[in-house]
């Protein structure tokens, strides 16, 4: 409280408050814009610093990659409270198998994409 009191007595703060009292609307607009800018700077910094930007396919230059993203097939909403019987388990397994089949279509990183031949460092033996 003491600090706030002292701060209010500071000539710069007093001048600013007097100015804001005289021009209430412009002061409010300025504050709103400043707050929006600050929040934007913080969020954009977090987006880059935390590395999220690198995994974001909605960036410009990734148009082709965006088309390769699998369209999510309508996932059957599994009722969490209904009865349990063999038919229910069978239906679960069918859905489960479909998802597992989808997984096989995606890259597994076990391909030899980094061999000298693939990187054209070495010519394949003829």
């Amino acid at each position, binding site marked *: 409280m003491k600090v706030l009191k002292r701060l209010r007595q500071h000539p710069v703060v007093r001048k600013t408050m007097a100015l804001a009292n005289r021009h209430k609307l412009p002061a409010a607009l300025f504050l709103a814009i400043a707050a929006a800018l600050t929040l934007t700077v913080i969020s954009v910094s977090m987006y880059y610093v935390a*590395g999220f930007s*690198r*995994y974001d*396919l909605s960036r410009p230059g*990734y148009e*082709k*990659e965006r088309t*390769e*993203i*699998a369209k*999510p097939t309508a*996932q059957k909403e*599994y*009722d*969490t*409270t*209904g*009865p*349990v*019987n*063999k*038919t*229910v*388990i*069978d239906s*679960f*397994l069918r*859905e*489960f*198998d479909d*998802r*597992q089949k*989808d*997984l096989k*279509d*995606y*890259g*597994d*990183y*076990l391909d030899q*994409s*980094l061999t*000298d031949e*693939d*990187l*054209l*460092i*070495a010519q394949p033996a003829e």
Partner: protein
Amino acid sequence: MKKRLFILFALALTLMPGFVSAATLAPERVSAIRQQCAVIQTILDQLQRRDLVARTNRGRAYEAQIKQIDALAQRLRANDITATMLEAPAANFKAIVESFRVAYVAYDDHMTVVRQIDCRQRPEDFALKLEEMKVLRHALGIEVTKGEEALNQYRQAVVVLRETIPEDKRSGSQ
């Protein structure tokens, strides 16, 4: 923490005596890297993009599987059915998905480092980092394989559970 462990693992492997074979820094190879630098960088850029698409698709599919697994667990609980045999494989799969995420970040970070090396000026550094990247990519592939195995184990456990459930088993609330 996990990411650091992954990088340490890769570095330990690459620093192991004999791992960095003489072939890695063979003069002909270093010279080929210098000459083909632009082409290699283009190929790595395409690979990084392709891997990102695979990561996105795989990540979504894993999330969908986890959602299904959790829904079944909840439904079994709601029906007072104890399914302890499902707990371990489900937890195992979730742990592997987490490891996969960590492994991908480690691999992708390394790919970015490799791509930032000027292979015309520093082909030896490039060659060494490329070897590390291969190890990280392989580690990522192993996580994918583990994930597949964990899902198979979970499926098997569900099949075993199915046999214990009578055809007309109904919820107590019904």
